[in-house]
């Protein structure tokens, strides 16, 4: 821990000198495991093993972030919720050993809602566009910025800490950037996580191999991102999009894509006291978007391309997704043993 604390302090000091515009030494892509890391890892491992179940702090989550759901949103299965809670309970124990309170939040699958569907721009009928634009006026008044209720307990605990304690809390929970490991996804994208700290130690206890977890969790959980990326690069999609954008330009709207168009409409609501004008502009843009969609066949092409890439990505990732499910099943068994051993199985 002391070694890691020095790392964080060092990073801050470097930041003061270099400000924001230099590549800071210690970036995870350049750093490999060190003997110091191994020592820190051992310390956390011992701490985790020594954890007792007494006083586990577990909270039931509320109703999500309360912004309404959308079709095709994310869903957490009971089995996945169990694993999330198990991981958080192991983190909680590890944090307690280090002197910090950490509330393990129990996800409630039925409360899991998505803010958006994650899919590409969803087609909306011209009739709906003429009546209600993108439907922004209905959501604008309900759009209250808030911290998701699930995140509040620990954020409130952190808020009460001194700056030095906060620094140590972050290091204890997330580890040091110096210990970062990274994996390259089949798409070529690279993701990373620190390999020490309570969070990674809990994952290692559940999944055994942290690198493998990092890879399979991302592939198994975020295939939507890969599908979106493939669609973005598809020439059929790009051609239809250019036609759509040309049509929109002809109608006086200089936007790159339907997301841009919707955003342009939403900006009108940001001007306080301009509700009527904002709605009028929203309808104007949304209808032009829909009509240009018909004229360019953009939404038809998009649906075909998206369906094709969804099937391709799912087929490509099938083996990894199966491996991910197996890893999760083994982790559940391991979690039951780990938690039961200390009298806190779920």
């Amino acid at each position: 821990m002391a070694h890691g604390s020095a790392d964080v302090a060092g990073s801050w000091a470097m930041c003061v000198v270099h400000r924001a515009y230099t590549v800071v030494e210690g970036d995870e892509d350049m750093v490999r495991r060190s003997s110091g890391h191994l020592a820190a890892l051992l310390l956390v491992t011992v701490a985790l093993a020594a954890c007792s179940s007494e006083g586990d702090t577990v909270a039931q989550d509320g109703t999500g972030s309360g912004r309404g759901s959308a079709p095709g949103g994310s869903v957490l299965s009971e089995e996945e919720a169990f694993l999330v809670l198990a991981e958080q309970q192991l983190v909680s124990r590890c944090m307690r050993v280090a002197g910090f309170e950490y509330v393990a939040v129990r996800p409630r699958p039925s409360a899991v809602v998505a803010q958006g569907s994650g899919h590409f721009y969803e087609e909306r009928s011209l009739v709906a566009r003429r009546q209600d634009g993108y439907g922004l006026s209905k959501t604008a008044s309900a759009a209250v910025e808030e911290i998701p209720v699930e995140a509040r307990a620990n954020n409130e605990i952190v808020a009460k800490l001194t700056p030095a304690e906060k620094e140590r809390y972050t290091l204890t929970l997330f580890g040091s950037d110096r210990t970062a490991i990274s994996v390259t996804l089949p798409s070529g994208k690279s993701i990373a996580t620190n390999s020490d700290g309570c969070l990674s130690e809990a994952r290692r206890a559940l999944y055994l191999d942290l690198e493998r977890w990092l890879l399979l969790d991302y592939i198994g959980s975020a295939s939507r991102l890969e599908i979106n990326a493939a669609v973005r690069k598809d020439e059929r999609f790009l051609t239809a999009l250019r036609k759509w954008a040309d049509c929109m330009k002809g109608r006086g709207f200089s936007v790159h894509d339907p997301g841009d168009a919707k955003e342009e409409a939403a900006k009108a609501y940001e001007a306080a006291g301009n509700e009527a004008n904002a709605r009028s502009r929203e309808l104007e843009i949304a209808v032009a978007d829909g009509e240009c969609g018909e004229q360019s066949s953009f939404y038809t092409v998009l649906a075909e391309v998206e369906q094709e890439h969804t099937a391709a990505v799912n087929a490509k990732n099938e083996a990894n997704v199966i491996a991910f499910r197996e890893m999760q099943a083994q982790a559940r068994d391991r979690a039951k043993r780990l938690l039961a051993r200390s009298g806190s199985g779920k």
Partner: protein
Amino acid sequence: MLHKLRLTVAVAIVGAVLVTAPGASAHEAGSPVCDSGALCVWYDTHYTGSRFMFFGTNSSWHSWAIADDDSSSKNNGTTGLRARIWENTSYGGTLIECLAQGVKVAHNDPNDEGSSNDWQWSC
């Protein structure tokens, strides 16, 4: 990515707290460190450039000089929630990133596309 005009503007306000709204605050400091509880987003790759810390659900990043300019990101949230980044405001357009707690990306892909963020148990 490294050559971004708005960076010049950001020089003057490094370290300043730009906006604090209920549940939605962003700080700009230019540090690779990410506070506990935050989704941290950096202007440049490898966690460099101006840093913004989003502690809650934010329907629009346009109040800050990071919208459509994000190049690296890290989820230091204090629950098992995943941090999700959206292409457009109000969680619209496509989902462009979904990071598990403690996971980070040194080079966002897609790059310079984020406009809003939320937190969910799954992607």
